[in-house]
């Protein structure tokens, strides 16, 4: 019965209640949608980081990450890669030869990281082959094909079938150079990566720098399940003790930092929204209590105890808050569902996002956990907002309250 009384009390002053419900709805709608958008942005970044760039786990020579010199290569890495490929939970593994180099076109030059890959195996680990916007994935060119990023192509002013020259250090320290022909141009969300990384065939690169056929600088491992990277990293590390085994979180701490701070950022944003709304709710409830002094006095006179009066005011506040909360969540979800497929294009704000590795088109994610987290925060806000008006109500003395004329 208290529930029903509380609910009906909210609607005694329709306009007043609707105003605060609208404020809550707008605040929570904005919070839920921003959260979904932010989550979409972060997950897209992580997906790109794992699926296109780093994969889940990487193995290197113990000294390689500290000093990425060609001499820190892993011997027999093709065999290690095959062994890892057959481990449980591993989807695929591939080896990469990585050399820092200079790239030059007829017009200009630039520093670049050359990654020598086995195109077939690489396409099982990363989805780079899906990112080709012009030409083909290291095919269609007979000798020394090279795959470069769109930004790099613009910088060098080259097209598919243009020639570029790579200059690099060999294993023995000598400098060598070779001519490559652009087979394809790729485009990914991470602009910096696109500007810094080119791909050639592993066999071409090995010949050029004089590395052993089984040697490489990196083994990239893709897992079947995104969540198992810690377990499998430990298993691999236990097996290859003389190699450096790291998960994507360790390799790209800036990406994992964004993921880990996402919730904190959103709690803060919603916290600020709800803190502002808190005063609105307190004001509404205080008015609701003060205009009912006589009625509350009567209720206490006829035997409604303090716990019940307190509960009734609490329920009124929480019902008021949750009405706005539920409408806000529903609206936030509807907008998320609407934009989930089409995405929101942020390219009008320049390419700063892309340079940081984020897509310019963000696809918000409808996540039921967001609704749960937001509801919990609204619940806490409602409880806090109810305290002062409820205490005001409890301080009433029935004999005095009944005498007041309103």
């Amino acid at each position, binding site marked *: *019965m208290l529930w029903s*009384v509380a609910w*009906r*009390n909210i609607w*005694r002053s329709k306009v007043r209640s609707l105003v605060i419900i609208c404020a809550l709805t707008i605040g929570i709608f904005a919070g839920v949608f921003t959260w979904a958008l932010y989550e979409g942005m972060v997950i897209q970044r992580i997906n790109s980081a794992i699926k296109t760039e780093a994969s889940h786990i990487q193995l290197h020579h113990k000294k390689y990450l500290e000093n990425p010199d060609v001499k820190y290569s892993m011997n027999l890495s093709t065999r290690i890669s095959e062994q890892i490929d057959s481990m449980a939970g591993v989807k695929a593994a591939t080896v990469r030869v990585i050399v820092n180099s200079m790239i030059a076109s007829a017009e200009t030059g630039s520093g670049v990281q050359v990654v020598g890959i086995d195109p077939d195996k690489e396409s099982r680990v990363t989805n780079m082959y899906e990112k080709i916007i012009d030409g083909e994935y290291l095919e269609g060119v007979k000798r020394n094909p090279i795959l470069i990023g769109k930004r790099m192509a613009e910088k060098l002013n080259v097209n598919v079938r243009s020639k570029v020259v790579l200059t690099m250090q060999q294993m023995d320290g000598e400098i060598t150079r070779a001519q490559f022909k652009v087979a394809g141009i790729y485009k990914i969300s991470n602009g910096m990566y696109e500007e810094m990384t080119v791909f050639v065939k592993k066999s071409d690169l090995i010949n050029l720098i004089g590395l052993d056929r089984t040697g490489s600088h990196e083994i990239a491992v893709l897992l079947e399940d995104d969540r198992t990277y810690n377990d499998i990293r430990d298993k691999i590390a236990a097996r290859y003790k003389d190699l450096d085994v790291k998960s994507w979180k360790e390799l790209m701490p800036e990406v994992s930092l964004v993921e880990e701070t996402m919730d904190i950022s959103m709690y803060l944003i919603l916290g600020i929204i709800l803190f502002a709304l808190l005063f609105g709710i307190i004001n509404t409830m205080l008015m609701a209590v003060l205009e009912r002094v*006589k*009625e509350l006095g*009567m*209720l*206490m*006179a*006829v*035997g*409604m*105890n*303090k716990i*019940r009066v307190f509960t009734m005011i609490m329920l009124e506040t929480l019902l008021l808050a949750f009405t706005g909360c539920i409408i806000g969540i529903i609206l936030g979800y509807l907008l998320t569902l609407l934009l989930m497929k089409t995405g929101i294009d942020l390219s009008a704000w320049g390419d700063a996002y892309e340079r940081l590795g984020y897509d310019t088109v963000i696809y918000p994610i409808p996540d039921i956990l967001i609704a749960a987290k937001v509801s919990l925060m609204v619940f806490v806000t409602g409880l806090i907002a109810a305290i002062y008006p409820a205490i005001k109500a409890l301080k009433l*003395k*029935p*004999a005095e309250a*009944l005498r007041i004329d309103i």
Partner: protein
Amino acid sequence: MKVIDIKNLTKIYNDSEYKVNALNGIDLSFEEGEFAAVVGPSGSGKTTLLNIVGGLDKPSGGEVIIDHTNIGKLKSSRLIDFRLKNIGFVFQAYNLIPVLTARENVEFIMHLQGKPKAEREKRMKDLMSAVGLSDRIDSRPSKLSGGQQQRVAVARALASKPKFILADEPTANLDSKSTENLLDIMEKLNKEENTTFIFSTHDARVVKKARRVITIEDGKVVSDEIRK
């Protein structure tokens, strides 16, 4: 059987500037089934007396003993429960819960008492029929006339089967027809349920119906007349 025993009751309101002796040593007792009016001019102490007997206010001295309990000594939380179990109230300005229907208003106190649904329902129907409002049980107070609201208030006061009912000027806002109707209903219920009714009033029509009339002036009982 004695329902209320009041001994040497005093009440002093201490304002910052002056003291008001609202009650000056009242000795009274009420038997089960009485239908008594407390009369007197404004400021004589009627409402103060009813508030203290009803446990809404604390005495400054003396005792109010109800069911072997000196209610002046009860803590306010215990007092609320005591009121819930033992006392029915009818106030001057109807004081129904506006968001509840007549039926829900009558059931509300039984609900607070934790009575089962079937019992609440039966008692509500009996009382609404006794006050002649069987056809209005689903109306909200705003849809009822003043007289009808006051009849619902009487039904509500009786719903909890209290030891006695206190009514502070119950007819003050009613026209003469409604007053008469309300008094008839109260008298009938007083006889049928043997519930003690004590009301304060100015109203000569109410005084006429009372079987006992207690007159208070300046916080003292000046006459206590029992009629047959």
